[in-house]
């Protein structure tokens, strides 16, 4: 069971007029895990998901979902998957409960069973109080949760989540993360697309980075980050005139590259890979304190998606 493959895609291609939205994507998604597809807007994430969910026919290449070919046998694929699209896949004119009852009926539940399933889901997702409201009156976070609830009316073997947290506030985002962890914990495979490295890092056990329709890197979050660099420390000082001094202290303490930011009191130190970031951060702070440099603000950050892309695309370009 552990070695079962949920998705196997080879050379998927999709063109829209002259634009190559997806230009030869290979994926291998093991069952029972969260697989992250990371990339900026327009990278081809949604198009890839739409092909795998049988909404679009690929122009070239092939893919299987739990052994069913997406073009030869789309109806078999549809019995295995659920899709939560980038824009809520719900009927905005209907109420929350009406949406879930409608979809339950379409899955084959009888009227009473559909009603009780809808009620249970609304309760589990903390939406009972809004059951009778039209979806157009829902907040972004509520809509997202109703959308995910609709995707598990029948527990799917594979759940597609297309940018599930884009545009959500941090609290709603954390709730969605919790839901995703619970769903995958019960054995469903999740294919998650995201623009946020942090999200992929939090949830996914493997990540494919997509840019301009191609997979430019693939691996565990750890592999991906270490291939890019360990992260950085950002400091804001109390006195502008201590900045040069601080730069020397940091460079000595961390044996790392230290840059001066555009902000006249700020510095950025790129950490060396292979060492604990927190240990390096603590060491840097204590050295600065010993040197009598006053620090107002200190942050320890992972490489950002921008940095990942920069590093990866530079390598592809070279």
């Amino acid at each position, binding site marked *: 069971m552990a070695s079962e493959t949920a998705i196997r895609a080879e050379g998927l291609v999709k063109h829209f007029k002259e634009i190559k939205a997806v230009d030869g994507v290979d994926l291998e998604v093991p069952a029972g895990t969260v697989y992250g597809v990371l990339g900026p807007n327009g990278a081809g994430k949604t198009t890839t998901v739409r092909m795998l969910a*049988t909404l679009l026919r690929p122009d070239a290449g092939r893919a299987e979902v739990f052994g069913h070919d997406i073009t030869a046998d789309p109806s078999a694929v549809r019995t295995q998957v659920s899709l939560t699209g980038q824009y809520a*896949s719900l009927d905005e004119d209907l109420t929350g409960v009406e949406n879930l009852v409608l979809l339950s*009926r379409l*899955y*084959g539940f009888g009227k009473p069973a559909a009603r009780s399933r809808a009620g249970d889901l609304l*309760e589990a997702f903390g939406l009972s109080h809004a059951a009778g409201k039209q979806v157009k009156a829902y907040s972004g976070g509520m809509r997202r949760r109703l959308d995910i609830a609709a995707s598990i009316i029948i*527990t799917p073997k594979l759940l597609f989540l297309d940018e599930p947290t884009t545009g959500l506030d941090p609290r709603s985002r954390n709730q969605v993360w919790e839901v995703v962890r619970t*769903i995958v914990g019960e054995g469903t495979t999740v294919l998650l697309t995201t623009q946020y490295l942090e999200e992929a890092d939090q949830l996914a056990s493997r990540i494919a980075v997509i840019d301009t329709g191609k997979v430019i890197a693939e691996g565990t979050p750890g592999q991906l980050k270490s291939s890019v660099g360990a992260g950085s420390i950002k400091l804001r000082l109390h006195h502008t005139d201590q900045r040069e001094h601080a730069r020397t202290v940091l460079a000595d303490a961390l044996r790392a590259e230290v840059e001066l930011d555009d902000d006249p009191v700020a510095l950025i130190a790129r950490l060396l890979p292979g060492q604990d970031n927190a240990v390096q951060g603590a060491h840097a702070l204590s050295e600065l304190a010993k040197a009598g440099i006053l620090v107002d603000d200190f942050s320890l950050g992972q490489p950002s998606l921008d940095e990942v892309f920069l590093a990866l695309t530079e390598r592809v370009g070279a």
Partner: protein
Amino acid sequence: MAFTETKTSTDQDAPAPVEKERLRRLLNQGERPAPPSAFASARAFAWRSMLKIKHVPEQLGDILVFPIIMLLMFTYLFGGAIAGGTGDYLQFLLPGIMVMSIVMTTIYTGMSVNIDINKGVSDRFRTLPIWRAAPMVGYLLADMFRYAAAGAIMFGTGMIMGYRPAGGAAGVLLGVVLLLVFCFAFSWVWTWLGLITRSEKTVMSISMSIMFPLTFLSNIMVDPATMPGWLRPVVENTPISQLVDGVRGLFDGTSPSGAVATTLIWSAGFIAVFGFLTLRAYNRK
């Protein structure tokens, strides 16, 4: 004080936290009912359309008020000129104007399909393991209800104005059924158009430019016998004129079997050709 009030109202709006234990239990119920039959899934979509009418009742206004306006306007405007009196003209006009206003409203189906297909919700419908035609058939089933309502309102208004059907209740009922069958079949032209065009405005302008000549170049308002010789055979043989002949004959009790048969053949043709094109477009979307 104001601050406290604001805070209370946000707390009420905020959703309760996700209940993980409950969610786990739901995920593990593992109950998987047999997929719904083609008819059951179409019925679910029809229910959805009826709910939309319930939530946005304004959309019924067009369909119910417009026909009454047409009936009053044409009867009292043209009655004297065309038939020498409004009473006689109403007797001729009512079945035709009923066909005209109801067939006209079939284009709404195409617009609804177009609005739907560009929204996320149709992505979800298209990933469900259900009969592919179900969403469209569901629309059409709910539309049958609207058409029947519009027909009843027009007929009632006609009766108040003095219309008397010689065909009796059975004739009227059969006439309305014939009209509904034709509308169901003809709507597939618009579902296809709704799927292949970019916006509902395009659907509107294309369908209007088909419907206007098709309904005016017909026997709805005037007897084709008064038209020039070259135009007459064209007008008499359009599907709309055949339908009007059928409905008018049934209302008048003249058993118009030829026109009824032709209308049913046209209907079967529309379903076969445009039903096929609709499904092909839906699958390729």
